[in-house]
């Protein structure tokens, strides 16, 4: 169990915004950077890449699983496209190690700040919203489970 208190969701978003600000508003650099983030995402075991774990609403294939350790949520994900993998890695960076309530209450605003829709397009942005929705669904399930369990 990980007892380290993670930084707040707001603080991590600020950090992501600051990282992207270094890229000079250059679409190509942003795309390459996102792909690079995806390459660093810890691998997901092949047996987790099942149809049940596919996030609905994404044009690319995205697999997502979640587990609860103590009162903290941890996600694992993968995608068949490099950019999407990079995008989901941003969400994992923000949400991993947070409490379910914090994930549910979170208001993600970094996408606008980094101009995401401009460099990945509307369809992928919609897919990105589907990923967030799925992660919040997991958080809700864990929160409910903890409440029933206690």
């Amino acid at each position, binding site marked *: 169990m990980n007892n380290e208190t993670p930084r707040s969701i707001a603080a991590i978003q600020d950090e992501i915004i600051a990282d992207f600000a270094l890229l000079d508003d*250059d*679409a*190509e650099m*942003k*795309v*390459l950077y996102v*792909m690079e983030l995806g390459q660093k995402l810890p691998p997901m075991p092949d047996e987790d890449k099942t149809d049940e774990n596919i996030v609905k609403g994404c*044009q*690319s294939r995205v697999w997502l699983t979640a587990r609860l350790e103590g009162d903290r949520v941890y996600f694992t994900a993968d995608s*068949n*496209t*490099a*950019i*999407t993998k990079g995008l989901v890695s941003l969400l994992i960076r923000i949400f991993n190690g947070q409490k379910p309530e914090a994930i549910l209450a979170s208001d993600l605003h970094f996408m606008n700040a980094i101009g995401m829709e401009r*460099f*990945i*397009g509307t369809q*992928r942005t919609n897919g990105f919203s589907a990923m967030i929705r799925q992660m919040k669904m997991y958080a809700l399930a864990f929160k409910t489970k903890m409440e029933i369990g206690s």
Partner: protein
Amino acid sequence: MAISATLSTDIKKIREEFPVLSQKVNGRDLVYFDNAATSQKPRQVIQALVDYYQTSNANIHRGIHTLAERATKAYEETREDARAFINAESSSEIIFVRGVTEGINLVASSYGRAFLREGDEVIISALEHHSNIVPWQLICEEKKAKLRIVPVTDIGEIDLDAYRKLLSDRTRIVATNHASNTLGTINPVAEITRMAHAHGAVVLIDGAQAGAHLDIDVRAIDCDFYCLSAHKMYGPTGTGILYGKRKLLEAMPPYQGGGEMIKDVTFEKTTYNELPYKFEAGTPNIADVIAYREAFRFILGLGRETIRAHEHDLLTYATEKLSSMPSVKIVGTAAEKVGVVSFVVDGIHPFDIGQMLDARGIAVRTGHHCTQPLMDRYGIEGTVRASFAVYNTKEEIDRLAEGLQRVINFVK
């Protein structure tokens, strides 16, 4: 050599006719290689739209006032130009539709409903766009007819031997494209038609990818139906034509009911108008049809041979350039192709390539291109597709190759 030198000077002039091309996307000059999805529009087409609304807007065929006369005349002039463009015998064989999709649906519904019987067969090729698959599936299901598929070879050509074996006295309709939107293959439509006619079947040709690129002569092909979409041939969106042989169109029931398509209406009985109006119910897309005329003029003004020669140059150049990249594999290498290059890259998803190219101002199409069965045939999910038009240049192909190399280097 002299021809291509002249043309390359001319291409600059041609590009100036397309206002949309002179912009930057993500900080670089736009390279537009998604012409198989829709082509850009020259000034004369845009101007015709503006002129119509500013000087002639009126509903056609019914009014007797001056504007109605003017609009009707312009609308019917497009019909005549469309007839000439495909060398049909009579302009009454030209029906304005929303595009190829509606043209095929019209034939499948009207001809199919009237003439298909249980146990009959409809043959299409494995190269077809979903719009030339689904309407046939629908009518076959309704009529308990059978849809048969002609396979394609490894290089992306229709397997004519297999086609010959599928043809029988049960075959009622054969539908195929003139050129494939995904692979670029130009199909031997005259031969396909001749073989179908020998079995008494009618033939529909989807000309979506031929309109801007190939010489079209429906009488030489001898096909029974031929469809075009204006927007893929420098014309406006939302219009196109269905050509049909007169005696077939006359025998077919109307597709939609409404104004314009009738002769007399009582509550007991309606008699239908003559061709082509029988199939043009309601107020049509007047403005776009009128502007479509300028697209025909643009193409014929440049000359279809000149366009074909230039696009063939681009195709050859792009094929050589991309083939020389070790991790790139071209999908579809038929002997006769329009300017379409579809490819996959080892270990990189087409979406990622498309996004990276867009970041460099290059517009390509990625995915299954509405031909999922064809993707299954090659065991791939999708491709990256660059498709050319007369305004594209070799320098733009260099930019594509450069962008592609950058993604490959990054991933490796």
